[in-house]
């Protein structure tokens, strides 16, 4: 019966139904491929920053928007506190809280944590739909479907949007593509309606991610390219002036953005193109009204006057020292390697690394070469709106090559252009397959399109594309499962018998803090764990991942790097009740505090009060960082060392090794038998990954304990 109904449908309806089915499958796929971590572990928030977003969302859902906006958080950066409402992009939290409230209105009582965990996969489903529409605007709906399918599984995007990675990027890519779709729509129609919608989408984008700066520069570049290539029209004028003026005013409503759109240099390009649009339109107007001879006179005088004024202004400002266009600084803007070569700290952050070809292949696979094919197709059939996607592709290509985290911005355009490329190849060869070609024969004589073995070649191409596409799908799922699905709050390892061992020490420790310490106690830890402690243990912390105050972090670093009596003074001064350290020596968890310790020393010694802490004291005379008996004495008597290795000297960790064998550093520790004077061990988790110490009070006579 159902089959009969399908056959009875007109071709148009069948076409729509098929497209909707394919899109629906893409959406479901993009949601479900991101659930690896939920299925393997459980529905948890990942990593560090998402915990802060989660905590703020919970606050927003409980207290409402006005309290959220005026929120002064006194449990972080003790005793300074932090203004939260004005220093974040609120789009993510508002979105999650809005979904939460709507669902609760319909009596679907979802937990706010689950809302946060599943927000990113949900938005990636939306992104596939938007990708379809954007590609349809640029090419046709076939290309749109291919692009949507690419988008649903491309690893470069999955890396930032798996379930549990509750971060700004998760929704920002959706906002960005949505804004682009509406921009293309408004360029095509030239209507104020679409342009205003585009600026509203832009507002959403600004509210959710700092990367909106890319967008507000790309659209003006598109307009500029249209002007230069003579494709400028009234449609573009209407679209751009509306988007720029409405969008800028809207974006200034976000308190974190404030007056930046009219003050900072990265927004000046958009303003300049806005001005240029007015001038070009005025010239076009004059050109239409005046005779060509008069216009030529006017044009030349204007050119000379403007040129003289410009050169004069530049010369004056250079001589008076206001601007310096010919110094090294100017060229450093053009050369991305400048900052990296001269400032080692920038070079050491892994997210700021440039991108190797293998990570391009890892994140994009066949898109790497289908992208130029798509460019080729776009260039063969150049339109105003195609120009946009070409510019988007080439500029984001450059940024992704300079910095690996910007792969996220490149992935969508890769999908779109590769979709156009694949669609082009498939449509040309599908026509040549025999079953389709026979229909043609009835209508007309054999076309001149043919060549010997046409059908065989066509079959070959179609089979090849099928293999490539399925390889892409397998590759993406493999990459997602291998590389992008570990929550890092729950660790897992392979045991000796091949089974999976779960280390859940972080949550064990945070919940211990939550249930066993006084509510107003202050916990000192290195800044990496700040967001997690405030979100899960609900205790006041001294420093967190929003590293806005370097001297405060430095003070904590000094406490960790000093001897017990010095550290005790600092901890009394900072009013610390508990100290938390991460230790991997028992399990072999390598990103623990001993491995981060040199950063604590460097940062601790970087301020005036920590001038006595010198990095070189923590090395052996030959310049090595060692924890065994040959290591530096300063290191073996500092607070961090003692907290990590307290009682560790009595423990056997590996067969055929002495007690106190550190499995990360692969060494037997040097300082085994010691007692702590100013601290009590309060709690150590099952696998010793987290150790918590209580700071002793002054003794009965009010003297320190050392």
């Amino acid at each position: 019966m159902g089959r009969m109904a399908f056959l009875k449908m007109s071709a148009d309806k069948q076409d729509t139904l098929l497209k909707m089915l394919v899109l629906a499958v893409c959406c479901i796929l993009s949601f479900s491929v991101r659930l690896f971590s939920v299925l393997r572990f459980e529905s948890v928030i990942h990593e560090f920053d998402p915990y802060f977003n989660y905590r703020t969302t919970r606050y927003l859902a409980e207290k409402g928007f006005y309290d959220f906006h005026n929120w002064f958080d006194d449990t972080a950066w003790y005793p300074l506190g932090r203004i939260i409402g004005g220093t974040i992009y609120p789009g993510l939290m508002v979105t999650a809280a809005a979904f939460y409230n709507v669902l609760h209105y319909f009596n679907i009582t979802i937990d706010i944590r689950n809302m946060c965990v599943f927000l990113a996969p949900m938005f990636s489903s939306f992104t596939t739909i938007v990708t379809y529409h954007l590609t349809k605007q640029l090419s046709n709906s076939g290309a749109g479907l291919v692009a949507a399918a690419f988008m649903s599984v491309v690893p470069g995007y999955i890396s930032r949007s798996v379930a549990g990675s509750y971060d700004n990027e998760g929704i920002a890519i959706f906002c960005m593509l949505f804004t682009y779709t509406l921009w293309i729509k408004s360029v095509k129609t030239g209507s104020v309606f679409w342009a205003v919608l585009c600026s509203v989408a832009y507002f959403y984008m600004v509210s959710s991610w700092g990367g909106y700066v890319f967008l507000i520069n790309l659209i003006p570049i598109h307009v500029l390219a249209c002007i230069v290539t003579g494709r400028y029209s009234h449609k573009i004028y209407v679209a751009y002036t509306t988007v720029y003026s409405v969008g800028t005013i809207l974006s200034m409503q976000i308190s974190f953005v404030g007056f930046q759109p009219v003050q900072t240099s990265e927004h000046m390009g958009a303003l300049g193109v806005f001005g240029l649009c007015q001038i070009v339109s005025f010239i076009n107007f004059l050109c239409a009204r005046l005779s060509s001879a008069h216009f030529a006179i006017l044009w030349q005088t204007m050119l000379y006057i403007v040129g003289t004024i410009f050169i004069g202004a530049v010369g004056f400002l250079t001589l008076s020292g206001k601007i310096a266009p010919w110094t090294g600084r100017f060229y450093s803007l053009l050369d991305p390697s400048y900052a990296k070569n001269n400032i080692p700290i920038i070079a050491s952050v892994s997210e700021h690394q440039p991108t190797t070809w293998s990570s391009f292949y890892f994140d994009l696979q066949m898109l790497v070469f289908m992208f130029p094919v798509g460019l080729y197709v776009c260039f063969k059939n150049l339109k105003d709106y195609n120009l946009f996607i070409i510019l988007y592709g080439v500029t984001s290509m450059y940024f992704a090559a300079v910095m690996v985290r910007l792969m996220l911005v490149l992935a969508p355009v890769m999908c779109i252009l590769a979709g156009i490329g694949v669609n082009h190849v498939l449509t040309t060869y599908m026509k040549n397959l025999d079953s389709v070609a026979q229909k043609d024969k009835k209508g007309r004589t054999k076309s001149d399109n043919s060549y010997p073995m046409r059908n065989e070649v066509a079959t070959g191409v179609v089979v090849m594309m099928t293999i490539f596409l399925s390889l892409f799908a397998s590759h993406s799922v493999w990459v997602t499962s291998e590389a992008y699905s570990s929550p890092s709050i729950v660790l897992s390892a392979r045991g000796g018998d091949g089974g999976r061992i779960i280390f859940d020490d972080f949550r064990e420790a945070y919940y211990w803090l939550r249930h066993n310490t006084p509510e107003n106690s202050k916990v000192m830890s290195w800044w990496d764990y700040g967001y997690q402690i405030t979100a899960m243990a609900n205790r006041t912390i001294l420093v967190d991942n929003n590293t806005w105050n370097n001297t405060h972090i430095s003070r904590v670093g000094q406490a960790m790097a000093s001897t017990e009596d010095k550290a005790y003074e600092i901890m009394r001064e900072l009013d610390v009740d508990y100290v938390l350290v991460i230790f991997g020596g028992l399990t072999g968890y390598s990103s623990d505090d001993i491995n981060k310790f040199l950063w604590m020393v460097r940062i601790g010694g970087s301020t005036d009060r920590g001038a006595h802490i010198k990095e070189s004291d923590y090395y052996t005379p030959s310049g090595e960082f060692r924890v065994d008996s040959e290591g530096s004495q300063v290191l073996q008597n500092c607070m961090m060392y003692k907290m990590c290795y307290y009682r560790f000297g009595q423990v056997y960790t590996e067969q055929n090794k002495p007690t106190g064998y550190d499995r990360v550093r692969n060494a037997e520790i040097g300082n085994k038998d010691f007692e702590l004077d100013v601290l009590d061990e309060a709690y150590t988790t099952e696998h010793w990954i987290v150790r918590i110490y209580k700071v002793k009070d002054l003794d009965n006579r009010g003297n320190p304990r050392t």
Partner: protein
Amino acid sequence: MNAIKGSLILFIIGLFCHTASPKTKQEVLQEKVHQLMEWSNRRTVIQMGGSKFANYVKSKPRNYSVIVMFTALNPKRGCSVCQEASDEFTILANSYRFSPAYSNSLFFGVVDFDDGQDIFRTLGLNSAPAFIHFPAKGKRKAVDTYDIQRYGFHADNIAKWMAERTEIVVRIFRPPNYMGTVVLVLLFSLAGGLLYVRRNSLDFFYNKTFWGVLSIFIVLGMTSGQMWNHIRGPPYYHRNPQNGAIHYIHGSSQGQLVAETHLVMLINAAIVVGFALLSEVHNPEMEVSKRKVFAIGGLVMVVFFFSLLISVFRRKYQSYPYSLLIR
């Protein structure tokens, strides 16, 4: 004759012994400073070997301080940052030489690893470049070694450190680098000239093939990691020091060699050309005889080079489970 010569030598030696012993500290100092001034007038950064270093920097008496750069400029040593650090150091030294603060209380020196390995050993240096200040009075402290890791080797930062250590404030004067400006002006005038000559037919500017080829070239360059090469400067290939085997492909996915990126760029380009051939087959202006060649050629190119790309990737990422045609 011989006897005279011998006695003359004896006499000279005797003279030396005679004059050296009662020479006061003051005189020795004066001589040293005089010698250093002469050298630094010739070259602001004094080249130092083992003996010079021992005489003028290590040994007392001294009433001047010396800032020494320890470096390894020999290309054999493969220290890529040394040259840049050396340039910055020279800029600082020259700025000092021509500044009002110039006096005989501070000198700049350089010790190359190949001239004084034992100096490196005695100072416990195991990396180059390093900047160390030898103060006029008192012992050398830990802060007298400049922390390159933290501050980088920009001349301004070294000058700041120098001001802290020696209380001599120098304003860095960079010889203006006109190279970039000249190139820019040349480029602009060339482009302007070209536009002026061909002002009646600016078609090439609107020629989309030109722009298309350009942007595809940019994309191929970026996806094959040329930007990484530009920033990191890896070697072209790697020679294993033990057995002399030459590797063109870096063994891990964290790094890459230049040869490998060129290979990947060629492979990607070949696949794109293959697809372009496949799409040109349906161009109605093409002869029928060529079509078959184009179609089959394109197909073979695409499949072969994609298999090659996967196999190159497998060399870097050993646990990668997929392959096509080529293992």
